[in-house]
């Protein structure tokens, strides 16, 4: 199995499309940090002060690297799925399109193992992308704006001591990665249905967009189906910044996100194991 995973790693990480996301965020994040450093930070400051100055005395470096790291995570989680699907959507469909299944599947290796190896590499890529974005945003923000306590405005105002922040951010990245695993595994499932890589990307993004619209609308009917939509649990990472941290709710979110990921993988295996390879 390790050999299969290693082969899939070679195939995935030697293609330029794998690095599109890394390149995109590698350009965007430094650009935004530069923009903030060159004056954009002031507009944050003005709006924060206007919001808080009547009730609080503001002192110290509130707009620090941790603050912008938190801001980046909140702003980017909608965009990350786009780059993830570029790789996840190609994992099975790409082989079908290229015709390489004609060699790959005519060996004494089960389809389940081949699919499992592909899936594991998809998750590795997803985790690498989330950690890259997290590391880049926090690293650059701390370098540009320094450290300090984190001001979180979410269900009230919370100030978190800097000593706790590395641990909380690491936990948050872990939860963000788990949420993105669901996106990748859904795209992976769609990829098993077709020989065209574009279809899974579009289908996955369509599901995410429609789901976000549904959970955003305050209609009673939509609220009822909200718990069944995986995007409803995408904000699990934010909960580690609550006080007290709602670990019970986070544990439930983890179970649900993992459940979606496993369910999508099993569906992909079941479908692909009996799929006729016609390409």
């Amino acid at each position, binding site marked *: 199995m390790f*050999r*299969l995973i290693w*082969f899939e790693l*070679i*195939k995935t990480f*030697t*293609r*330029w499309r794998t690095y599109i996301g890394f390149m995109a965020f590698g350009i965007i994040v430094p650009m935004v940090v530069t923009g903030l450093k060159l004056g954009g930070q002031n507009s944050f400051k003005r709006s924060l002060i206007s919001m808080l100055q009547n009730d609080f005395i503001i002192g110290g470096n509130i707009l620090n690297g941790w603050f912008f790291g938190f801001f980046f995570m909140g702003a980017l989680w909608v965009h990350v799925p786009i780059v993830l699907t570029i790789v996840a959507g190609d994992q099975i469909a790409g082989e079908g399109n*290229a*015709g*390489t*299944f*004609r*060699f*790959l*599947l*005519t*060996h*004494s*290796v*089960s*389809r389940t193992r081949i699919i499992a190896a592909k899936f594991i590499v998809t998750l590795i890529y997803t985790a690498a992308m989330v950690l890259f974005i997290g590391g880049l945003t926090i690293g650059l923000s701390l370098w540009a704006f320094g450290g300090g306590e984190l001001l979180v405005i979410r269900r009230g105002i919370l100030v978190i001591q800097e000593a706790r922040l590395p641990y909380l951010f690491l936990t948050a990245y872990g939860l963000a990665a788990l949420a993105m695993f669901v996106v990748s595994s859904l795209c992976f499932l769609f990829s098993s249905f077709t020989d065209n890589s574009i279809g899974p990307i579009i289908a996955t993004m369509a599901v995410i967009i429609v789901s976000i619209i549904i959970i955003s609308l305050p209609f009673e009917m939509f609220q009822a189906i909200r718990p069944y939509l995986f995007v409803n649990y995408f904000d699990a990472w934010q909960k580690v910044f609550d006080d007290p941290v709602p670990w019970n709710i986070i544990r439930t979110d983890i179970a649900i996100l993992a459940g979606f990921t496993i369910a999508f993988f099993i569906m992909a295996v079941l479908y692909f194991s*009996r799929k*006729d*390879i*016609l390409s």
Partner: protein
Amino acid sequence: MTDIILRTVNLTKRYKDRLAVDHLNIEVRQGEIFGFLGPNGAGKSTTIRMILRLIFPTEGDVELFGASLKKAGHRALEKVGAVVEKPAFYGHLSAFRNMEILGGLQKTVTRRRIMEYLERVGLADRACDPVKTYSHGMNQRLGLALILLKEPQLIILDEPTTGLDPQGMKEVRELILELSGERGVTVLLSSHLLYEVEMIATQMAIIHHGRLRVGGSVHDLLKKGPSEVLIKTDRPSEAVQFLKANEVYKSAMIHSGGIKIELDQDCVPELNRRMVDAGFNVNAMVPQRSLEAYFLNLTEGRES
């Protein structure tokens, strides 16, 4: 103990209303080079894909080395190497990497062995180049190298010489004969180049509309029934008149500067003797009976 390596048992594939393969029964024995023929859309590729478990039969089964493909699943393919249709590789990777990945799925392959087989097909000097820079012929050779790397006991080749230059085609034919002769490898060969099958296959089957039309030894099948003989002589017009006078040779006619006549292969020596006795200079008598004529007759329904 049976020497049957591959057997299809009522193998059937239906796509909605279309029957692609219809209760096909073929047997391939140890050491044979088995020609698998049929016009486009006859069901050859579908059959090969079912044998290789790329597609699943609607009905029937495949037995490989005595094991049912339905029961044994992917494990039945352990001793099988195949190139199905156009060989496809990871274009962004080198030939070496492709060999390492696609050849190493079952067991680790050493660098020495990969290079040995790349050398065997004449690709060693391009081993590090991305496969996307390869010509179609080079891809075909890489596909063969990949099969050899697996050291299979049964090789399934779907149009293996397509896109190769004459030298490449000759090399592939020689390779197949070498594998079969020296190493005892069984070969199932699907080809549109019928003369190719005629040249190297020992057994063959022809399918049409998904059904087996005929099967048996290439030699026996080609011996059956009348065939054409092209005669090169000094006076073709007079020779045709002479031949037509005899009921047996009434099919004689001028063709390409010579004479074409429909005749059993066994009657050719007698014809030669009669023409020489009648004073004609017979420069050549070339049997025109080929698998191609046989195949066309069969698939066009002119032959029983």
